């Protein structure tokens, strides 16, 4: 049972444009959501998070949106840079406990 889903395995975006990565979840108990960036054979790097009491959180070029009624969150990266090319994972937790990860989206930024 995949409680966190990233339906797009890959995404290509031109440098300077907006990258939008999507994530859906099924468990209504999730109250905290995170995005991580990962390179092969390395640990995930924390990017940004959002709690269920908010619907938007910004940090520099990264913005996460949460739509609780739709059980959907998205990560916007503006403007996209070549260094953003990586696999992005969304993750969710209940009260700060174990993370349940999505399957990842490979983002490629085209120069």
């Amino acid at each position, binding site marked *: 049972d995949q409680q966190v889903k990233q339906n797009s395995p890959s995404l290509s975006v031109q440098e300077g444009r907006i990258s939008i990565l999507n994530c859906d979840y099924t468990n209504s108990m999730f*109250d*905290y959501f*995170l995005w*991580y960036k990962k390179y092969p*054979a*390395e*640990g*995930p*790097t*924390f990017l940004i*998070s959002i*709690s269920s009491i908010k619907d938007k959180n910004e940090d520099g070029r990264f913005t996460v949106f949460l739509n609780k009624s739709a059980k959907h969150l998205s990560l916007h990266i503006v403007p996209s840079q070549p260094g953003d090319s990586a696999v992005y*994972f969304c*993750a969710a937790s209940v*009260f*700060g*406990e*174990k*993370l*349940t*990860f*999505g*399957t*990842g989206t490979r983002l490629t930024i085209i120069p």
Partner: protein
Amino acid sequence: EAGVTQSPTHLIKTRGQQATLRCSPISGHTSVYWYQQALGLGLQFLLWYDEGEERNRGNFPPRFSGRQFPNYSSELNVNALELEDSALYLCASSRRQGEAYNEQFFGPGTRLTVL
């Protein structure tokens, strides 16, 4: 501030052997989590330790076990290794249990290869 560290970087074992992986959390973090990323699969939760106690475990057999030491570092043991245990094992740490909305910060991982 030093990040999460893991050792060894790579580990090669044969079927039936035991593997021990180590993790040191970020200073001030008391919770340590272990995850497995097998080839072609996502990150799967293995174990969670906080204040020296096992708080939760994922859907893995009892061959996977661990412990957390008084200095909050942790060890993951995998007994009777099987070929499918070959994976990247990731350790993460966060602030104490009970504080909601804790980010988990990951180490670089240990690549375990079982031959």
